[in-house]
């Protein structure tokens, strides 16, 4: 087999791999990206982030159009599904072109093939039509991503019993859908399909969906999901799932509950894609959780091999993966990256959206003797009324004196955009009053920050007045 040498070899072309490659190329390195698919993008483009968010966007539009226009128009079922599938293909194709073009313009070489280590510096790459060649890298970045977990008790056949990769292959909307799980992917798809008129039942061991998020936020989400007709069966354990051979997936729970549905989505976690790499040949092993262990610089136990993205474990966000890929390449090339910013937002693309940065209310109460939580219901915002987006809520978590911003929690349309305002304020060390003392465009949803900040101020004033009346010293 012929060997080709590069300064940087990146295995995987998802968010982490792309940014590692671009960083290397911009530093003047010869860079090779290897991916088993025909075009770059990884699961993010082909099965995950891009298609699910596109599906969501179209579902929201189809659902909100009658509300916003006040026109009594009922979009037929066939209009919805044909609109969904056509848009998905177009958006994915556009993103593939964009990423491919960026890599090409940067001078990055792309090989389509399956890679496995031959030794610590070389990988065999088998092409899709047969044949193989060898890539040799001075530095190697493993960014092979993750895939849906296949629990042994769920017989996923990708036809009746689906995972998050095959759910997008549906060519018609099922009449009913069971969703196993209550994490991000489960909640996103459950709310999307409920919004589209599918009878959805979420089933999970946890008592509430998205248990890592602020409880008030998830209560809002649950209420909205249930208002769309969705059902949540929490605190349940799965006993079995089977396709009846005719038309129904039968899900049996430990308490005897039986749920029948046309399709089932298993969204019970993801596992790192490391199996096919033959890590041992490179002197590496996966952890007990099947992940790639890296240090603070994203370096594995083999000094010139790095890991980035889902393969190294949480937070497993496209946003953090991109930054990890960039940092891994920078460290390998001796390029300074600056201090790590600890203020990382998270966005959940459910319907409605949710977003979080910093501490949520429960975490803040644990860490501080007293906190002040300012609230801004979207129903109180002019833009909320104009956009028919009145279901949202912004929570501003502040310290006991109502000055320091400890966190921002948002549920409602635009949450994933709005969160960046709070994130920037926290990064800049701005106090809560910055949202009162500065001007926001009117009418906007961003004004929710001002409303919440005013709520904080009022609560602080009220507390001080009470302390004064009680003869207590007033906290400054």
């Amino acid at each position, binding site marked *: 087999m012929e060997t080709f040498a590069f300064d940087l070899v990146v295995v995987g072309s998802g968010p982490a791999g792309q940014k590692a490659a671009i960083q290397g190329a911009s530093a003047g390195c010869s860079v090779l990206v290897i991916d*088993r*698919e*025909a075009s770059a993008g990884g699961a993010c483009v082909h*099965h995950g982030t891009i298609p699910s968010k596109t599906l969501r966007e179209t579902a929201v539009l189809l659902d909100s159009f009658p509300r916003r226009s006040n026109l009594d128009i009922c979009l*037929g*079922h*066939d209009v919805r*599904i044909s609109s969904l599938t*056509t848009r998905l293909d177009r958006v994915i194709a556009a993103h593939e072109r964009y990423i491919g073009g960026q890599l090409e313009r940067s001078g990055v070489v792309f090989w*389509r093939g*399956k890679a496995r280590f031959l030794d610590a510096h070389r990988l065999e790459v*088998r092409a*899709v*039509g*047969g044949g193989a060649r060898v890539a040799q890298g001075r530095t190697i970045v493993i960014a092979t991503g993750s895939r849906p977990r296949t629990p042994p008790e769920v017989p996923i*056949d*990708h*036809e*009746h019993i689906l995972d998050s*990769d*095959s759910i*997008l*292959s*549906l*060519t*018609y*909307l*099922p*009449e009913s859908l069971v969703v196993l799980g209550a994490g991000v992917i489960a909640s996103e798809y459950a709310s999307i399909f409920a919004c589209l008129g599918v009878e959805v039942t979420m089933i999970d061991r946890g008592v509430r969906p998205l248990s890592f998020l602020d409880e008030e936020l998830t209560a809002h989400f649950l209420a909205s999901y249930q208002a769309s007709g969705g059902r949540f069966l929490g605190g349940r354990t799965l006993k079995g799932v089977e396709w009846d*051979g*005719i*038309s*129904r997936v039968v899900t049996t729970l430990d308490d005897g509950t039986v749920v029948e549905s*046309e399709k089932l989505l298993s969204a019970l976690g993801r596992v790192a894609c490391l199996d096919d790499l033959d890590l041992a040949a490179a002197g590496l092993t996966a952890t007990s959780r099947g992940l790639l262990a890296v240090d603070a610089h994203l370096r594995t136990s083999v000094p010139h091999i790095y890991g980035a993205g889902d393969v190294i474990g949480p937070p497993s966000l496209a946003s953090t993966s991109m930054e990890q890929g960039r940092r891994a390449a920078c460290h390998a090339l001796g390029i300074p990256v600056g201090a790590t910013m600890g203020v990382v937002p998270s966005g959940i693309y459910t319907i409605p959206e949710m977003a979080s940065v910093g501490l949520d209310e429960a975490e803040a109460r644990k860490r501080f003797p007293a906190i002040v939580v300012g609230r801004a219901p979207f129903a109180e915002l002019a833009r909320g009324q104009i956009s028919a987006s009145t279901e949202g809520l912004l929570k501003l978590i502040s310290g006991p004196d109502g000055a320091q911003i400890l966190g921002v929690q948002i549920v409602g349309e635009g949450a994933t955009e709005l969160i960046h305002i709070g994130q920037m304020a926290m990064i800049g060390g701005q106090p809560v009053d910055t949202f009162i003392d500065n001007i926001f465009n009117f009418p906007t949803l961003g004004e929710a920050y001002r409303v919440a900040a005013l709520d904080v101020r009022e609560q602080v004033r009220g507390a001080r007045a009470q302390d004064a009346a009680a003869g207590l010293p007033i906290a400054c």
Partner: protein
Amino acid sequence: MVTAPRDARHPGAPPARSWTLVEARQEILRRVEQQLLDVPMLPEVAQEALGMLQDPSCDGRRLSSLIHRDQAIAAHLLRIASSPLYHRGAQLVSLQQAVSRLGTRTIGEIILAVCTKSGTFRVPGFEAEVQRLFRHSYATAFLARQAARIRRSSQEEAFLGGLLHDLGKLAALQCVGQVAAPAAKLDPAALEALLFEVHCEVGAAIAAAWKLPAALSEVMRHHHDPESAPGAKRAAHLTAFADRLAYAMFDEGSADAAALAAHPSAMALNLYPEDVTALIAEREPITRSLEVMP
């Protein structure tokens, strides 16, 4: 040369005289233009279906299995099940969807109507050819579904495309058989060439006349040229590759994974040699299913 009696059902056909395959081809295209195409059922399958429907112990699984292995029943079922009489709302795009939405009782009613009212294939001398067609279609459907599973594409859509991709050949063969009785003198190679030439056009005409799903229609027209499919390229590639694979496995008797992995559709679908090997390993379950077919 063949002798063609006048066919009362097709008054536009030339009077009884010796026909060449060239004239048979013209007759096929005339029927395409005038939407006079038949999709006949195999008499043995119609008999099996009727027996099944009359059997009180027959469960939905057997019925579902029947419609999933016979292209004529499948095509008629989709045509009728999508009509306003049976289904309102979005067009039915897969056999499984039809079963799920209508229920096995209604499916049974439709099959009964199809079996008793549709024409059956009764053309002496063509039995082996039509049997081969049905078996090949089933094998293609099975393999297309498995390939779709590997690529996380719609298995239902892939199965349907594989099952019905050569429906045009069946209709064309019915037409040739009707105008060419007795048919024993036809040159097999010339007949095969004729069927190959017209079947995509005939299939697309049936799909249009019967208002079959758009993706299916594209597969029926473009499975020999998938890159020309305007909206259903992937589905067309799945059928194209499964078609080739089915021929290699069951007609040619040898399936070389390495060679098949270089097929343009395998490359377009991103099927690696090990994926093709896995598909070839499906020979046994397909063979078992074919053995129970009439």
